[in-house]
């Protein structure tokens, strides 16, 4: 197995991945953004421990209660309450589980499918490539949100259906990248050498080519996660995502729409949460790309 050379300037003598890691760690904004992402993930995991209240606990006496710093606010409900008197902070904390779970699940499944399809298309060529490439072209013919909305409209809302609807479209992105990389790798000496010693196609694809293109795929996957999170939030906003009373950020923004005249906080905080997480993922993935896949660096 050969490791692709990186043009990244780093300490000579160190393995490439450690040189790349050094470059990444030198990028302060990417490091900070990664810390923010880790915080969000931690928040999602320990949500039951840190959420001050049950996210679905309603109390109409607290209906649209303002945040603590406004008149009528209460320290027990720091970010205020929604129209059903539910604690916004607790719902935000629980809502992070949906965004992060869906983002991670979709990207994971899509990447695995995309890698397998891309390797097969790029390495085996012939009719396999024609079929896979045509499917990719057709799926790229749909605007993302419209494809997802169409599928969700037909399949009905729900957590599993969202993951499916997004995976059906998402896998084409890693597939295209992997196909392109595999086409290039196929002509490299190390692949020819493996072929010469009689290695099977499966062995060459998974053990020789895959390790060399994994960094490019990983970078793409992190970038895509931000997009998937926005998609999930958009579907939930339209009422096609996770169904109430389960807290999801998109649904929380939608729930506050009717009350923007009197209670801005109901929509504002979940929107800020989406912005913060997606921004952090974008900045971190930009740093990853610059460090691990410098061909695409600006």
């Amino acid at each position: 197995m050969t490791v692709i050379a990186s043009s990244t300037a780093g300490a000579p003598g160190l393995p490439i991945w450690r040189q790349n890691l050094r470059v990444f760690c030198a990028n302060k904004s990417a490091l900070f953004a990664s810390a923010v992402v880790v915080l969000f993930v931690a928040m999602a995991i320990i949500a039951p421990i840190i959420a001050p209240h049950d996210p679905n606990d309603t109390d109409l006496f607290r209906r649209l209660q303002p945040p603590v710093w406004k008149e009528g606010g209460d320290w027990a409900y720091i970010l205020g309450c929604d129209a059903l008197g539910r604690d916004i902070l607790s719902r935000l904390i629980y809502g992070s589980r949906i965004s992060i779970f869906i983002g991670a699940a979709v990207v994971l499944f899509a990447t695995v499918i995309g890698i397998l399809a891309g390797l097969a298309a790029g390495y085996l060529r012939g009719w396999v490539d024609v079929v896979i490439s045509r499917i990719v072209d057709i799926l790229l013919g749909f605007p993302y949100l419209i494809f997802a909305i169409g599928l969700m409209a037909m399949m009905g809302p729900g957590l599993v259906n969202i993951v499916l609807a997004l995976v059906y479209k998402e896998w084409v992105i890693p597939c295209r990248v992997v196909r392109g990389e595999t086409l290039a790798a196929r002509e490299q000496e190390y692949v020819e050498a493996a072929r010469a010693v009689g290695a099977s196609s499966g062995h060459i694809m998974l053990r020789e080519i895959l390790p060399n293109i994994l960094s490019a795929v990983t970078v793409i996957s992190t970038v895509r996660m931000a997009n998937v999170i926005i998609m999930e939030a958009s579907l939930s906003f339209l009422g096609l995502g996770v169904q109430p009373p389960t807290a999801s950020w998109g649904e929380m923004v939608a729930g506050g729409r009717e009350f923007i005249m009197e209670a801005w906080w109901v929509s504002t905080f979940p929107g800020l949460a989406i912005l913060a997480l997606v921004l952090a993922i974008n900045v971190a993935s930009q740093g990853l790309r610059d460090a691990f896949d410098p061909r695409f660096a600006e």
Partner: protein
Amino acid sequence: MNPAKFFQRLLQLAPVLLGVSFIAFMMLAMTPGDPVALIIGEHAATPEQIETLRRDLGLNQPLLQRFASFLADAVTGNFGTSFYHRRPVAEVIGERLPATIELSLVALIVALVTSIPLGVLAAIRKNTIFDRIATLFSLVGVSMPGFWLGILLIMIFAVNLQLFPVAGRIGFSHEVDPITGFMLIDTLLHRNFAAFGETLRYIALPAVTLGLPMAAILMRVTRTSMLEVLQQDYVTFANAKGLKPRRIFFRHALKNALIPTVSVAAIETGSLLGGNMIVETIFGWPGLGRLVVESIFVRNYPLVQAAVLLYAVTYVLLNFIADILYTLLNPRVKL
């Protein structure tokens, strides 16, 4: 451009359009539940009536045959009957389409007008505070969910500052008889300038909501491509010849730097279609996007299917136009 190559590229569209139509067809065919039961609704029907309806809808035919009829009907603009409106789907969509096209075009203008100057300035003043702010704007723009941006704009500009209306396309005080269906054009054709101004006020917030994320992407593309062009030999040569910076900039650099922007703009216009559903829902804009979202909740599937197909075909064609534009503007690229 070589016409033979152009037609070859055009022919390559056929399998994609066919595949896109098949997926749109399958979306409805795979829907759980019986379409007949959906049409009959709560009305009592005899088994014979149900069987007749099933035959009329072609549901007893094999799947591929149904797809062939669907395709033949779609080509002639026949998408069946909207269950909810009890009228042909094509007619209902046709009524809503101008509002959506108008909003998309204004959003596109907003995106181009903000992104190009910002991108160019950010490139010229690379690594200055202006560049940093513009880059931050671009990063926030792509990270911000469109639906939240819309709500924020309503809160700030409609509710608090009361500069723009919250929702709708035109106020009740203005009656404008439709000519083209595009309100901005119709008001001008009627020489009703007060109504034109009013229409502009109504379209401003939805167009900004729809256009800003696109502006963020275009700004980045313009900045990168301008930076590349400014490092080219012919710009250095023009500088060495002593040409005025303004002349170098407008005559030499800008024209080439905008090539990627134009083709990305054509592709991104396709993404506006998806954004439309969200923006029209937030701003009560009477376009196709809102109609689709409403149709989903009343299970008006034929309309949803027709709209998905219409959006996808438009998207494929926009991508094709982007390709052609890129080739036409950049003679070094061979199609």
